[in-house]
């Protein structure tokens, strides 16, 4: 009897990993640990800090309720940054989705050199953003306008006189445009790849059926392809919005929020206030200000993606 029990025990342990519940929990635990430690803890900490008067270097601080939020909403720089964040996110995502759709449509067709074209289009995504922003800085002449490739070219072809300069990042609107341009350039590959995947997942027979049914290019695009791609476009836009609304790299490297704090987005302002300015509580309040809105956006987008799930 004892040997049988021992055998059963051994067998139970030997096939432990064959049980889906055990193996599944084991495989997903690193991801859960990662999210809890590196996303959950900082997020909760930020929410806690936003209700305190903490300054850098100390985590002990007094609870001040909504004071930080009251302060920032009456701060014109914050309001400007909030507006910039919306413009930055909305305009860049709009351009990205349109361009990515066009690129995906072009890249789904087979032509000589397509692998190379696909590779080149992915490049901006794999290059470190700090490096590429510096390259753009040089192209635009943000930190030294005499080095601007654009200015140099315009002068070479005679559009600009020898003493004319264009200061791309010296004015709020052109600086904002430059930031959006770089961000679009950077986000485009990711969106293109997602849309390309969505496009290739539509069965060829559906396109063929539409062709035989007499639909031309535009009708196929708007009545068949786009509706079928809606879920995947929603996912691409969701990622785009969240990446963009929480991004500060381009702003920070290109303009540092200048001129006169006019191009700050929430993330860069939070960094400046909280880390440089040392007002951790206020910085945290700025950083999590959009959190409820982004949660709602994510919820709506995922619902849209699920509702239109087609096949």
């Amino acid at each position, binding site marked *: 009897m004892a040997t049988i029990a021992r055998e059963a025990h051994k067998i139970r342990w030997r096939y432990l990993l064959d049980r889906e519940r055990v193996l599944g929990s084991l495989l997903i635990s690193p991801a859960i640990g990662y999210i809890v430690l590196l996303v959950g803890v900082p997020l909760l900490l930020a929410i806690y800090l936003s209700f305190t008067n903490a300054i850098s270097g100390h985590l002990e601080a007094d609870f001040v309720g909504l004071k930080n939020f009251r302060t920032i909403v009456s701060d014109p720089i914050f309001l400007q940054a909030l507006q910039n964040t919306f413009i930055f996110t909305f305009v860049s995502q709009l351009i990205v989705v349109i361009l990515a759709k066009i690129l995906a449509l072009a890249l789904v067709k087979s032509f000589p050199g397509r692998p190379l074209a696909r590779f080149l289009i992915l490049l901006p995504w794999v290059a470190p953003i700090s490096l590429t922003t510096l390259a753009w800085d040089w192209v635009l002449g943000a930190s030294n306008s005499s080095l601007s490739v654009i200015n140099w070219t315009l002068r070479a072809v005679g559009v600009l006189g020898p003493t004319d300069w264009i200061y791309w990042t010296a004015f709020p609107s052109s600086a904002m445009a430059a930031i959006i341009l770089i961000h679009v350039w950077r986000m485009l590959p990711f969106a293109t790849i997602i849309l390309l995947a969505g496009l290739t997942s539509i*069965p060829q*027979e*559906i396109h*063929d*059926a*539409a*062709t*035989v*049914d*007499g*639909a*031309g290019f535009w*009708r196929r695009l708007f*009545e*068949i392809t786009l*509706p*079928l791609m809606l879920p995947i476009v929603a996912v691409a836009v969701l990622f785009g919005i969240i990446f963009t609304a929480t991004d500060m790299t381009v702003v920070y490297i290109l303009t540092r929020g200048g001129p006169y704090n006019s191009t700050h987005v929430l993330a860069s302002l939070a960094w400046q206030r909280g880390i440089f300015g040392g007002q951790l509580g206020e910085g945290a309040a700025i950083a999590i200000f959009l959190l409820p809105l982004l949660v709602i956006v994510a919820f709506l987008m995922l619902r849209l993606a699920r509702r*239109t799930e*087609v*096949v």
Partner: protein
Amino acid sequence: MAAVEMRGLKKYFGKVRAVDGIDLEVRDKEFLVLLGPSGCGKTTLMRIIAGLEQPTAGEVLIGGQVVNDLPPRARRIAMVFQSYALYPHKTAFDNIAFPLKTQGLSRDTIKEKVEWAANMLGIAHLLDRKPRELSGGERQRVALARAIVREPAVFLLDEPLSNLDAKLRHAARDELKRFQRNIGTTTIYVTHDQVEAMGLGDRIAVMNAGKVRQIGTPHEVYHEPADTFVATFVGTPPMNLIARDDVMIGFRPESFLPKEVYNAHDDLVKFQFHVRRIEHLGSDRLLYGSLKDKDDTPVIAKLPLTVSVQVCEEKDYEFAVRTGDLKFFDRETGLRTEARL
């Protein structure tokens, strides 16, 4: 209504000769089946007729007009795809209405025609459902309705029954055939299933490796196969082939019966048959075994229920074929030749 003609059609994908010189005429109102194994080029041929592929060489004529340069929508064809290719985000109504919408018909006309097609196929009550809410058979009807709704000159059907389960397939086959007879539209039907081909086709074009090996009525294709490919592809189990000198002799499993079954005055060729295994299929018995010749040629016999002769496994019997049921093929080319005994 229109006849379809293919003249010297070729389609090469790189080195692959998907369609390798096809001349074929489909008569007006005819139901022609393109039958062949997968990869024989039958679907490519259909896609060329539809205008979804451009031929490497040759011409397609629909109703006497060369349509090579016409886009699919100008060819007056309708196609039903293997997967049905229904638009998943549109209701059955909008699916059926789509080919009418592209013609810019008025909303009232569209509604009228969609309802006509839906009634004909008995799916009027399903019109506001999405494809995913429909069963396989219902989807197939929606796909058919979408095809007939604009009253095409030619129907192209690409294995439309292969996604149905076996039970539904018989009913669907019968329905499809009656339906085609009613509307009388020229129909080209692609399948790899020879039972479907025999059951549906007015004529069958048997294809292999990009070429048409034989075109004829189901009766001709079955009883007078043009070569060994057709002989073994059409019919289950396939025709038995035995090598004798420079010819192959073929006979159908159901023509290969115990000697006792025949009358005394029948003109017979006799074989010693070693039965290895017996399958009881209800209506038939299949006997697997080999001839007692120098090659031990494997053959199959199919005895209908009416033959009550006792047969056991691992025993030898005397079987026979009527001389008239023997087919002769050239051993080199595989083509039919004169009877040689």
